[in-house]
């Protein structure tokens, strides 16, 4: 099975202190460390496991700049066979639809039976997977937490639904799935693994390679524009506990006791 997994380089939420930039339309990016979007990492692990079971090939693709190469290598160290970087100045400032258009064009350049995306990335929009499926006219399942290959035409996919219930669907290939965390336990990628793939050539494709007009993607093609970015003001009834972790915990326990939440 030929699988394409779309991955994104994002600021690592666990390892950064995130604050809104002074311009107010982004976060402060000076001291950030980046890694692969967590959901995408689960998607790559799932793709590798599928190929381990039924054979085939895993390609990881990222829309980004030169630095996105680092996360492609990390996923290749994990076991993805090929990488593909979609890079062009014209891609900058793409909205979700723009990103989906770029990916759609890349899908057209290959022959893939299955396309996986993470359920969402750091912005929490969870839109690219669905749009990509629509543009390709492929069937789509979101928030997938189980994949079973029936044959080369069909998959059985599990989805987590409201209230912790599980539903199982059959879906025809080729299709797009957005992968939920917890579907597997992604393997560890050590420094050694990354070094092993350090010199592997990763092909790069730009707008012209993909046959995309400069005005259909990037800032020029974006129909959604972020206009503001801020930490909401504290409403009535909200209280921020301050102090050391211990002090915060003590205050919280006290509050819970006072309001009858803890006996």
């Amino acid at each position, binding site marked *: 099975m030929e699988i394409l997994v779309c991955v994104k380089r994002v600021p690592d939420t*666990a390892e950064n202190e995130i604050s809104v930039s002074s311009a107010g339309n982004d976060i402060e990016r000076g001291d950030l460390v980046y*890694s692969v979007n967590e959901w995408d990492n689960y998607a790559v692990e799932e793709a590798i496991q599928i190929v381990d079971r039924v054979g085939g090939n895993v390609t990881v693709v990222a829309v980004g700049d030169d630095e996105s190469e680092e996360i492609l290598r990390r996923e290749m160290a994990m076991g993805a066979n090929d990488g593909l970087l979609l890079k062009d100045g014209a891609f900058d400032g793409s909205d979700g639809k723009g990103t989906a258009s770029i990916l759609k064009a890349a899908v057209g350049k290959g022959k893939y039976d299955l396309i996986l995306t993470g359920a969402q990335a750091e912005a929490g929009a969870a839109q690219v997977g669905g749009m990509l499926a629509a543009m390709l006219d492929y069937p789509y399942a979101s928030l997938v937490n189980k994949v079973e290959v029936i044959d080369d035409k069909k998959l059985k996919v599990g989805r987590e639904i409201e209230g912790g219930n599980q539903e199982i669907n059959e879906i025809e290939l080729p299709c797009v799935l957005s992968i939920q965390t917890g579907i597997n336990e992604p393997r560890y990628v*050590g*420094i*050694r693994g990354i070094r092993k793939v350090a010199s592997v050539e990763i092909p790069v494709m730009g707008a012209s390679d993909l046959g995309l007009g400069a005005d259909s993607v990037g800032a020029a093609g974006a129909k959604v524009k972020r206009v503001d970015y801020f930490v909401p003001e504290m409403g009535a009834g909200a209280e921020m506990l301050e102090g050391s972790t211990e002090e915060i915990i003590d205050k919280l326990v006290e509050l819970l006791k006072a309001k009858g939440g803890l006996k």
Partner: protein
Amino acid sequence: MGTFLLSVFALLVPVAGIALFVYIVARRLAPLFRAAPDFRFDNIGKRLFGLYEYPHHRMPRPGYELSGYIHITTIICLGVLSLQVITLLLQGISPSFSLPFLDKGLIADGYRMISDLALTVLLGATLLALYRRVVLKPERYDVPERYGKNKTFPDAVLSLGLLAGLAVLDIVYIASGWRVDVYAGADTHILIPFTGTWITASVFSLFSPTANQVVHVLSFMLLIVLIFGFVCYLPFGRFFHLVTGPPNVFFKKIKKGSVKPVKWGITDDKLDELESFGVKKFEDFTWKHMLDFYTCTDCGRCSDNCPATTVGRPLSPRFISIKGRNYAFSHYPLKGSFIQNEPLMGDVFHDDEIWSCTTCGACEEECPVTIEYIDKIVDLRRGMVDDGNVPQSLQKPLSAIEKRGNPWGKMEKKRGEWTKDLPEDCSVKLFEAGDTAETLYFVDSITSYDDRMISIAKATAKLLCAGGADFGILGKDEKDSGNEVRRFGEEMLFQDLKNHNTEMILESGVKQIVTADPHALNTLKNDYAGLPPVEHISQFLARKIKNGDISLKSVEKPEAVYTYHDPCYLGRHNEIYDAPRDVLDAIPGLRRVEMAKSRDRSFCCSGGGLMLFYEPEEEERMGVLRVKMAAEAGATVMVTACPFCLVNMEDAIKIAGLEGKLEAIDLAELVERHLDK
């Protein structure tokens, strides 16, 4: 004719016996020749001395005195009797044979008297050992159900039975021979009253000379068959340690606290060229580690002291060895082809088993035949890391260390923030800002960032100031020391941390390094190379108190009872036991008690570094057991000298419900409070 046949028999049995033994041992050693290299030929003098020194230090450790002294006695007796057995075997072939000085005369008679005594003592010791096995049944010999059938018990009884049988037969052989000599009017040695030989010879005086002669010949024939039967049985079970024990002790690990290189003979800068890392299949173990498997006596002392076993984690060091030996026996059988290169993880060893180890070293401290466990565990983990098989709970901190140099992913620039509210008379220099100083205080991650542990950093800085040290810190240029990164098998990340820290330390131009974190101490001292000398703050304090640079005032809480908990990486791995105790005892009026398990028997707090992140399967927390031990000793204050111990103890006190009865404090914090300014 009869004598001739006897000589032929006496020749054939040893030849056949030796041939069979050599064949069996050659098959047993076959995997060692397919194993990874291991460099054990340095320090020959030290190693030879170890053969003498080791048994009487290790064997009768407290709690194991009986079995220890049975062993020492047996070794001495077997040593004495070896000459008698050699003589006996060769006399079978040529009756006039004798070893130099042992034919006739004072020395010969003296030796015969001593060996009579040795035989009796050997028989007594063996029967006592059998009594322990069969009647007393020490708990540590039990085999938990999940490890299958108890094969040790029948093996032990059979081996000990054979040894007792040998002693009895030898007594019969000597006593009947002595009787024959007496009847023939030849010179004989004096029998020491109440020895086995004396009793048997007394009984044999009831029988005729011919009867004694017949008994003498028959006992000889049976004896040599049994001797070689016994020798050939050794490689089938735990008695193999009679053969492999001495070489295993000779080849023991010399450098405490260190971890073996990924592959002996491959320098750190060549690691990238290795195809595979760590132990994935049996043949990836080093030959010495395979010898360890064969040498295991199944005595259970390791697991008896293992904190992971004690709290019900799925690890028992004893069965690491037993499973390794069973693997060798079944995959390198005595006949038929060898089964090679099968994966170990999942079939022989299990993930949780291998991640359960805190590398505290209690097992190795206890093993009477110097079996190594930490290096094997680390090698197995290296194999798992190389295959990407790392628990999710450990992946986050490892990736944070890779990116930010600390397991919580905190910002590098905040690493030195703890210094900001130090008093004005104690300023900490910052090498990242271009300062220079004599001494580097290596803070390490937890003490730099943790809300609670920065109090150790502040106390340490104040103590260094009080002791007049000219010191600084690396600040954002310091990364995690990597002690656990290495011990959790992520060697390449460790190499990066080591190279970075080494470069920064050398660049700072310091003459010495001091730390309050034993894990940092251990890795800087034993894993890094080319650094200035490293010491723990307790050593600095002991010295400064002794020479009067630091004086301490009377204990704040005269009613309190203090106890000191030895951190594994300060105590067992670096043998610093006395300095922290001396420092405590220098506080006037401080009352101190020892816990039952202290010094090299200290009980691990639950583990430090990455172990804080690992979520083990266990019935109880190690820390909880440990704080209960402190309470049992009558202590109200538990002093430790490691930030990880402090984290675990403070948690454990709450869980154990000992709040208000017991508190935990770091040595540096306690001493800082008693500075007499």
